[in-house]
Structures are given as C-alpha cells and as structure tokens.
C-alpha cells in the first residue's frame, strides 16, 4: 500500500483480488462525474482498468492508475474529498459501498483487508 500526494491509496494486486471477491466489477460506459469537489463520495472507488481523473478548478490534477482506491476514508469519516473525480467511458471499477466497507472492518470477509482499511481510514487528511 503506497501513499500519494492526493487522497489516493495504491493497493497491491493481492489486496485488489481480495476486494474483487467481495464487490462486483462494473464497467462505466459513459463519461460520468463520480463526485464533485467538496462532496463526500457516496461509495469508494477502486480503479481496475481505464481512465479516472481528479479535477480541481477545471484542471486535471491527477490521473489515477490501476489499483488506486479513492473515497474510502472520506466515506467512513463523512469528510469532503478535495477534488472532483471524473470517469471516462470503458473504465472498469469496483465500488465499495458503506455497508460492504463496514462488513470488511467487522472482519466479515478478510482480516488483512480489514487492517488496511483501518489504516486508510485513520490516515491524516491531506
């Protein structure tokens, strides 16, 4: 797990596989704003393949890489995300809703995943 300048967590392939086993993969076929600057994401997003960009003041500040997770800490802490996120067509993502995240934290699924999520949630805000 790597930390970034922006509130993004890069997960290693083993953790990505674990997440894929508890939440389905969805393909975005149309360009969509996942959430807007200052909002709390309604779910957390894990990019598997495709293009997601973080935008502030109409400028692209960061393009996510495969395996990047965003919105987890903000969703659980109910805090705002400092940038907008846009997904482009033909992008594969896993979204984790709050109920699933709480199940993971409650060790319903996997203890390693639970530990990583706890670490992300308690990270200092950027």
């Amino acid at each position, binding site marked *: 797990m790597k930390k970034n300048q922006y509130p993004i967590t890069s997960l290693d392939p083993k953790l990505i596989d674990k997440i894929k086993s508890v939440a389905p993969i969805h393909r975005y076929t149309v360009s*969509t704003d996942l959430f807007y600057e200052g909002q709390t994401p309604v779910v957390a997003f894990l990019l598997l393949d495709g293009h997601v960009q973080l935008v502030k003041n109409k400028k692209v500040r960061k393009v996510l890489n495969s395996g990047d997770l965003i919105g987890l800490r903000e969703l659980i802490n109910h805090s705002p995300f400092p940038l907008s996120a846009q997904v482009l067509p033909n992008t594969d993502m896993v979204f984790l*809703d709050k109920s699933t995240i709480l199940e993971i934290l409650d060790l319903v699924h996997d203890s390693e995943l639970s530990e990583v999520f706890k670490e992300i949630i308690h990270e200092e805000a950027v």
Partner: protein
Amino acid sequence: MKKNKTSCENCESRMSGVFCELTNDELSDISEHKVTNVYKKGQNLFVQGNHPYGLYCVSRGNIKVSKVGPDGKESIVRIVKGGDVIGHRSLFTDQNYTATATAMEDSTVCFLDKKFIMKAIQQLPSVAMNIIEKLSRDMGAAENKVSSFHQKNVRERLAELLLLLKESHGEKTDDGKIRINIKLTREEMATMIGTANETLIRFISEFKDEGLIEQDGKFIIIKDEDELMSWADVNY
C-alpha cells in the same frame, strides 16, 4: 475535516419522505449510515447508463430526472422535490440507470447504499410500504403521461402540466392565486409535454391572454384553476 450532516430527525422533508413513520431511534440509524451532500445547480446525482449504487433521498431542492434520446435530445421524465426518493426503481431491478438526475438548484440530497436500504425494507414494514406506494404512484404517473401523449393535444397537455406542477410545487398567494414555485425554462417545459419551444411559448401566451395564468419573473402563477382543469380534462 468532518462535514455537518443533516440528521433525518431534523430533516425539513421528514414528514413527506419514505421514512416518515419511523421512530427517532430508527431514524438515527439511518442518519448514522447515510451520506449527505449538497449538489450545486447542474451537478448530476447519477447518469443514464451507469450502475446504481443505492437510493437518493432529497432533503431540499429540486432534481430533474431526464432521459437523453438517440438524437441527443433531453426529455424531462419528472421533477423530484424534498421528501421524494430517486433511484428506487433501478435498485430493485438491478438495471443500469435509465435516466440522469440533475440538480435544478442547489439541493441537499442524502444517499443510502443498496445493502442498507434492502435491510431496512426487510426490517421496517413502513419503509417497504412507502416505497411500494411511491413505485405505484410513479407507475400511475407514467401511465397518465403515455395516455396524455396519445390522447391530448399540446394545449391540453400544457394545462395538465401546469396542474401537476401546482400539485407538487404550488403555493397559495395572498390574493388567492397559486404560484408555481419552481423555475423551469421554456425548453424544459417543452420537453415535459413533448413539443417544440415555439409551440409551448405560443400556448403560454394564449393562456396569459385568456387570463388562465400570469407570470412573475420566471415563476408562473395560476389565476384560473377551474378553466385549466377543464382544458386538461383531469380531476386532481
């Protein structure tokens, strides 16, 4: 930095929502779990073609639900206000969203994920009943719309639209008229009754000339509801 959440117990739309019959304890569970956001005018809650995440509950503001056709033209399916929910149909069918939801003004909207709302439906019969009632009303409105499009002319459809907006957004004025408290562009109104802008503008002018309606800036005021009802051929 934590955001201030609107608690369900203190929500201004509490009494008109699907959770209106819950106790404060039950509502506090929902408050704890939900995500509350303010969507600025023009921001999308969800987009046609994408997978649904859960249920959106409008606390304050107006949200338009619209579909874009193959020709790129937008048609407004319905307008959702405080106390209404959106996304419930896609939630049960597990189909992708068939419409886009966009804030028409700065709006406060709460979100509950699918797993949580399904659990609430199983455990709280009043929530299930209110959602069923909501789905039934939506279905009735959709059936009325289809029959209106087939059986009524533009003038009748406009009269019907004004009466529907009166039901959802009407406020009585001091002089006994009814002000429709929502700003809609002519283009938006035209898409709601399936006509061209020019035709809509012509019929609005006719209604004004005949004393059925008047305008206060961007707001429409209904002066003669009975005459509108006779044109719309409905009983609201």
